[in-house]
């Protein structure tokens, strides 16, 4: 088992580095010049200012040296300075990551809370109204464009009905709590500031539903398919023949065996939610990493792009690693192979 863990870890690190190398090479083939993008019109026309800017960010160095310096800094946990925000990329990420982590986690929990039961019931009661409902939910969730859904939700629940608050993480005139973790729900609990907790929670409702919509669909469909497969197996028939309670057959026999694909999907879905919230964050003016990623990309902010790539690759690799580990626990045959 230990050997398995180490071999998986080593592969993971190589994978992350490969991902950064690929992105570095792609980013450098873009014809746009980040120095010209970052400087004002007058400075951009001043060769001395442009050269000074390039030197400051190491853009005047050969490609291999730029990448080598990136690796050196990475070894020290330093992502360098962002070209567009002009401060340490790490400071930007520390600023923006909590908003995304909070949103993605709530969206993920929401996906599980809705997707799992809906998928299970849809399988158990195949072709009933619940199954049709599950199919409709999945179809809408997967196929509705995020920005469209976000605007519709905002227009109905905020604009028309007034049930939900508007965009942002808190009401405009609310005072943000002192930063401890940056996760508002956690910070307000630690501080015992329940009014702000309710405000933050209310602001999370619409964006998390929007962000979760596609994942709910995926989890519902996958759970349903896996459960149907499990329910048709001989051991389930035997369990039923023994006269076991329906609940015991479903939760004790079928469900654990149906969980393998769901765990894989769930892991990837969480990684996706963490890294793919650009649209939701844009519409809801959510100060998270999604917007930061987008802005870094359009301004060809190399240090920020490289940092985000490393983080995204690491998140995916880590999640995959955890999924693999859980496989090993759920199904011991994996390790033996």
């Amino acid at each position, binding site marked *: 088992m230990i050997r398995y863990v180490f071999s998986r870890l080593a592969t993971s690190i190589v994978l992350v580095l490969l991902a950064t190398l690929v992105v570095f090479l792609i980013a450098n083939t*873009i*014809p*746009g*010049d980040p120095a*010209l*993008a970052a400087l*004002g*019109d*007058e*400075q951009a*026309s001043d060769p001395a200012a442009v050269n000074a800017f390039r030197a400051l960010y190491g853009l005047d160095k050969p490609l291999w040296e730029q990448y080598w310096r990136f690796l050196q800094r990475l070894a020290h946990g330093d992502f360098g300075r962002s070209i*567009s*925000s*002009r401060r340490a990329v790490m400071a930007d990420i520390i*600023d*923006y990551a909590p908003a995304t982590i909070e949103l993605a986690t*709530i969206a993920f*929990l*929401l996906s599980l*809370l*809705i997707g799992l*039961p*809906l998928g299970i*019931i849809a399988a158990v*009661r195949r*072709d*009933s109204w619940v199954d049709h409902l599950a199919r409709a939910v999945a179809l809408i969730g997967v196929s509705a464009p995020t920005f469209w859904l976000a*605007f519709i939700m*905002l*227009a109905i629940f905020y*604009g028309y009905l*007034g*049930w*939900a*608050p*508007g*965009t*942002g*993480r808190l*009401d*405009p*005139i609310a005072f*943000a709590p002192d930063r401890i973790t940056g996760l508002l729900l956690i910070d307000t609990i630690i501080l015992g500031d329940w009014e702000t907790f*309710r405000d933050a*929670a*209310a602001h999370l*409702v619409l964006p*998390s539903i929007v962000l979760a919509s596609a994942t709910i669909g995926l989890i519902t469909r996958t759970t349903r398919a896996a459960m149907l497969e499990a329910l048709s197996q001989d051991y389930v028939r035997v369990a039923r023949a023994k006269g076991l309670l*329906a*609940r015991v*057959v479903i939760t004790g026999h079928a469900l654990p065996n149906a969980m393998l694909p769901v765990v894989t999907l769930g892991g990837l879905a969480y990684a996706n939610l963490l890294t793919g919230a650009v649209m939701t964050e*844009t*519409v*809801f*003016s959510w*100060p998270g990493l999604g*917007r930061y990623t987008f*802005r870094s990309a*359009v*301004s060809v902010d190399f240090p920020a792009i490289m940092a985000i790539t490393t983080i995204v690759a690491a998140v995916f690799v880590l999640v995959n690693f955890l999924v693999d580990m859980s496989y090993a626990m759920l199904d011991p045959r994996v390790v033996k192979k």
Partner: protein
Amino acid sequence: MSNGWISRRELALLLGAGGAALAAGLPDRVHAQARRNTLVLGIDISDTISLDPARMAQYTPPMTLNAAYASLVSFAVGNYYDPIPALAESWSRTADGKALRIKLREAKFASGNLVTADDVKWTLDRVKHLKDQPALYNSNIASVAVVDPRTVDIFLIEPGEPVLGALASTTNGILERKVVEAQGGTSAVDANTTDKATAWLNDNSAGAGAYRLTGWQRNQQIQLVRNPHYYGGMPGFERILIRHMSESAAQLLAVQRGDIDAAFNLIPEQIQTLKGQAGLRVEGLASLDFVYLALTTSAELNKALAVQEARQAIAAAIDYNGIRDNLLGGVATRCAHFLPIGLLGSTEKTTRDIGPQQNLDRARMLLQKAGFPDGFEFDVSYGNAAVSGLSYAVLAQKLQSDLARVGIRMKLNPMDQVNLRTQYTTAKSTAVLTFWNPAGVRQFSWATATTERVAARLRWTPPADIVKLVKDATLEQDLAKQEAMWVEYQRRMIEVSHLIVLFQPIYQTVVRDTAKTFPLTASGYQVELEKARP
């Protein structure tokens, strides 16, 4: 499969688990608390990367900086060439003509301390020595000398060249030396490496503006509170919150619901939907920005565009009124050339008198003269972006159809903004459809751009007479004479026809009646928050 595998009760329980998760979050809404005395502005402030005046070079931070800092002089709305007093009570040339002597009014910083000549010198020295973008605007300032606590001399490199426009910029907002020094600020020659005050100035201010900056959460919100010591009288609101809202649709909903008092980034269609709604009004003001078509003059890039008459034919084929009235719903104006309306020598009358007008017969005649009777082909590059709610793609298609009427074939070449900027700045574009947004209100900076850096981008060598005209007009002290010279400059440039201004947008802001007075300005900071009143 309703054969008892799962009971109805269990089904309800399972479904309920999902529903409960939703309901738990659903709001018992934290609703409008006491919002009176708080002005909330909804605007996209994602470009804000610093609120240190001496390091600022973006589009939206001036709004905050103008509220938090007072400059020496300012501009009245509509007149952006004749400055009015702010912290400076009066000014005049020194006897030898080498400096501008400025007499300060008795004004206090937000701390309650008096604004002194020493603070002015320290601020301007710091801007210079930080060597960031704002230092370029002050390139004509040689040095600053304190005469007495309320008098300061600003020595100029080119004594005839105007400097008040630069002093009016929010990048020259006066800082309280003692406070900023306590936070690591310095105005020493090596300030670019030793000054440590920017981090503090990003969250706090040390100015004499109507409000005091008390916090900035990136991509979320900027908070300001009233400065009771403001020299212009008690400011209208206790607090101002500049709320980041990246999407115009979200701004629309928020201003309708009363969560924000003003929405800055609505597109014309959204503004139409608000017309006649109680409690809301639309404030509009011509900006000093404009959208223009730049044409290369290099035969290497395009043989036809190297010929002046061919470029003039393009200017004569464009349906300017159609762009303004149909594409922009009339919410725009047009300056004759590179000097926006609001500057000296640029009015709507100037545009009518000397600006290019659509005349297809003349365009065909010019094509004949240029030696391209059947027209010609050229590539135009533009960014994947929009200005005033109008995308460059739609604008380019309109130009394409206008030019096709005289046989000129315009090929569309959309690209990302960074790529566009790189190509244009390095003089590799045949033609570019883009936007001019000046860094500060300095009349001559528009004109010198056309004879210097923009000229280089279009591979154009400006004739000596135009260069001299710009120089003379810049130095001319008599406003009437100066005005005539700027008109002549525009006339000469229109002949060259490598820069064709298409429109100057009128920016519209939707304001709730919770802000009865809300004076917009084109001075760069969008609204005079110091004069806003409930």
